[in-house]
C-alpha cells in the first residue's frame, strides 16, 4: 500500500514499457505491494457491487489473478473532469489502483505525464496495436453542430476522435451523464449540438454509466465484469448496467419507511428534516431515478445526497436537467400559458372556469322556455 500518489507518472510510462502488460492483474498487484488480503477484500467488494452472490468472489479473484491487463484510453470531451475527479478521489486505494494502475491506462489527458505530440502518438499506438481489444472510457458530451468545431484535441474534433477511438474499441464506457446522455452541455438551448457517445457513434458498443459524477465503484465493477466474464454486463433500455441502475433510488432508500408511514420534511430545517424524514415533498427525484446510490453511496460509502438531507436531483436519468427540474418541486413546470404555471394552478383555473360557464348556462336555460321534443302542448 505504498503508492497513494504518482500514478500519473507511472501511467505516463506505461506506453513505453509494453512488457508490463504481460503481467496478470494479480501479479501486478503483488509486485506493487498490494497484499493478498487487500486484493481479496477488493474482489468481495466488487462482487457485491455487481450484485453477484458472495460465492462469486473467489471466482472474481481467480479470474483477476490470471487475466492480462487490457489497455485503456480515457477521452475527455465537453466535460468538467468531474468523473476523473471522482475516480482519483476514490478513497478506497485498491479501487483506484485497480482502475488506474492495474489497467494499462495509455492515455488520459488529465493525469498522463506525456503531452503534445508524444501523447497523441501514444493514443494512436494503442488504438492501432490493440484494435478491437482496448477499452475506451469517455467523459463528456460530443458537440455536433457546425461540423463539430466546438471542441478539439490535437487538431482533431471530438467527433472525429470519438468515431476513431470508440469505433475501434472492444467496449466504450460512457462515464457521467454528459457522455451517457448529453447531460448539461446538451440542455436547452444546447448551443454546441451536444450529444451522447452512443448518438455520436451509433455503431460503437457503449455502456452508459450516468451520474454526476459517475460512482467510481460502479466503473470499477463494470471493468471487472468485463475482465472476468469477457463481455459487457446486462444493460437496460437506456444502455445502463442493471447491476447499478436496475432499481429505483426510492425503492432502496433508507428514508423509505418514512415515505410509507407518511412522515415528510415540510420545510428545510424543520423538525422532520432534523429527524431524517422523507424528502418527497421537497422535490426529491428518488421516485423517478434508477441508480444504486442508496447501497453503493459515494466517498468510501460514507454518504449520498438523500442520506445527507438533500433530495435526489435525478442526475443519472436521461431526462436530467431539462425535465428533472425544478430541483425542489415534485413535478415539472408547465410552460405556454404566458407565465410559468404549475399544473395544479391551471387545473384549478380550468375547473372553476368550467363550473362558472355552466352556472351561467344553467341560469339562461332556467329562464328559457324550450319546447319539449315533439310535444307542442308543454313547455319545459
Amino acid at each position, binding site marked *: 500500500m505504498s503508492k497513494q500518489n504518482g500514478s500519473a507518472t507511472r501511467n505516463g510510462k506505461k506506453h513505453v514499457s509494453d512488457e508490463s502488460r504481460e503481467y496478470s492483474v494479480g501479479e501486478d498487484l503483488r509486485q506493487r505491494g498490494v497484499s493478498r488480503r487487500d486484493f481479496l477484500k477488493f474482489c468481495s467488494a466488487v462482487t457485491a457491487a455487481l450484485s453477484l452472490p458472495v460465492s462469486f468472489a473467489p471466482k472474481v479473484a481467480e479470474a483477476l489473478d490470471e487475466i492480462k491487463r487490457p489497455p485503456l484510453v480515457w477521452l475527455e470531451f465537453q466535460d468538467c473532469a468531474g468523473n476523473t475527479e471522482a475516480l482519483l478521489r476514490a478513497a478506497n486505494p485498491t479501487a483506484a489502483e485497480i482502475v488506474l494502475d492495474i489497467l494499462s491506462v495509455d492515455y488520459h489527458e488529465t493525469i498522463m505525464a506525456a503531452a503534445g505530440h508524444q501523447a497523441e502518438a501514444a493514443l494512436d499506438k494503442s488504438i492501432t496495436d490493440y484494435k478491437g481489444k482496448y477499452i475506451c472510457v469517455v467523459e463528456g458530451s460530443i458537440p455536433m453542430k457546425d461540423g463539430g468545431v466546438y471542441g478539439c484535441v490535437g487538431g482533431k474534433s471530438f467527433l472525429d476522435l470519438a468515431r476513431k477511438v470508440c469505433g475501434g474499441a472492444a467496449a466504450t464506457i460512457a462515464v457521467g451523464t454528459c457522455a451517457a446522455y448529453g447531460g448539461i452541455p446538451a440542455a436547452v438551448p444546447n448551443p454546441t449540438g451536444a450529444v451522447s457517445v452512443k448518438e455520436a457513434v451509433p455503431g460503437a458498443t457503449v455502456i452508459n454509466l450516468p451520474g454526476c459524477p459517475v460512482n467510481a465503484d460502479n466503473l470499477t465493477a463494470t471493468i471487472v465484469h468485463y475482465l472476468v466474464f469477457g463481455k459487457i454486463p446486462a444493460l*437496460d*433500455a437506456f444502455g445502463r448496467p*442493471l447491476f447499478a441502475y*436496475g*432499481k*429505483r433510488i426510492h*425503492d432502496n432508500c433508507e428514508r423509505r*419507511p*418514512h*415515505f*410509507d*408511514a*407518511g*412522515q*415528510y420534511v*415540510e420545510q428545510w430545517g424543520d423538525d*422532520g428534516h432534523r429527524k431524517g*424524514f422523507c424528502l*418527497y*415533498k421537497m422535490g426529491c427525484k428518488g421516485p*423517478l431515478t*434508477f441508480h444504486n446510490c442508496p447501497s453503493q453511496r459515494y466517498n468510501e460509502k460514507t454518504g449520498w445526497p438523500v442520506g445527507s438531507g438533500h433530495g435526489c436531483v*435525478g442526475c443519472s*436519468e*436521461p*431526462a436530467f436537467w431539462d*425535465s*428533472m427540474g425544478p430541483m425542489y418541486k*415534485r*413535478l*415539472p413546470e*408547465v410552460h405556454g400559458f404566458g407565465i410559468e404555471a404549475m*399544473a*395544479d394552478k*391551471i*387545473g*384549478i383555473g*380550468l*375547473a372553476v*372556469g*368550467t*363550473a362558472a360557464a*355552466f352556472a351561467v*348556462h*344553467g341560469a*339562461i*336555460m332556467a329562464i*328559457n*322556455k*324550450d*319546447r*319539449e*321534443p*315533439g*310535444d307542442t*302542448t*308543454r313547455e*319545459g
Partner: protein
Amino acid sequence: MTRTQVHEHCKLKRYIWELPVRWCHWINVFSIVTLTATGAFIAHPFSVAHSASDFAMGWVRFLHFAIGYLFTVSVVSRMIWLLIGNRYAGWREYFPMLTARGRAKLRDMFRYYLFMSHQVPETIGHNPLAATAYFLVFCIYIVMILTGFAMYAQHAPGGLMHRSLGFMYALFNTPTLHLLHHSLPWLLLGFVINHVYSAWLMDIKEHGAEISSIFSGYKFTLKKEDE
C-alpha cells in the same frame, strides 16, 4: 290514426342502457372519485404519521393501485362491450360526425346548447355532443391507465409489465409520465362538471328520465330511433 295520436301524447318506455353499461358507468364513477382522492393525497401528502411504523401513505397507495386495477377492468370491459353491446352501447355511437344523420343531430344539439334554438332535440341513446366528449374522455382514461401502470411498473424493472410498457418509456420520460398522470384528472373534473350539469339539464328539458335511466336502463322517448 289512433296510434299516431297516442304517439303524440305518450312517451314509450325503452330499454337503452344494458346492465354492463350501467355497471361500468358506476364502477367508473366510484373509481374516478376514489382514485382522485387517493391520487391527490399521493401528490400532496400531509404528515399524518406519529411513528415510522405507520403505513398511511402505504395504504393510500395500495388503495390507489387496487382501484386502478378495478378501473382498468371496467374500462376494458366497456371497450369489449363497444363491440358486442346494443346499438346505444356500440362504438358507432361515439362518432356521430361520421354520418350525415349524426352530423345533423350534432348540429341541432349544438344550436340548442348555444341558445340558437328553443326546440329540445330528442335523444334516444347518447346525446351526440356528449358522445363526442365521451370519446375524448375514453382517450384520457387510456392515457391515465397507461401512464399509471408505466409508473407503477417501475418498481420492478425488467418485469412483464415493465417490458410490455416499454413503448411508454420510449415516448415519455418519467417526469412527463408523472405530469400527465397528475394533470389529466383536472380535465376529467371539468368533464364531470359538464356531465352532471348536462344530465340534469336534459332531464328537466327532455322529460325523458335522463338521470334515472343510468340506474334503471330505461328512457322515455316519443319516437323510435329509426322513425
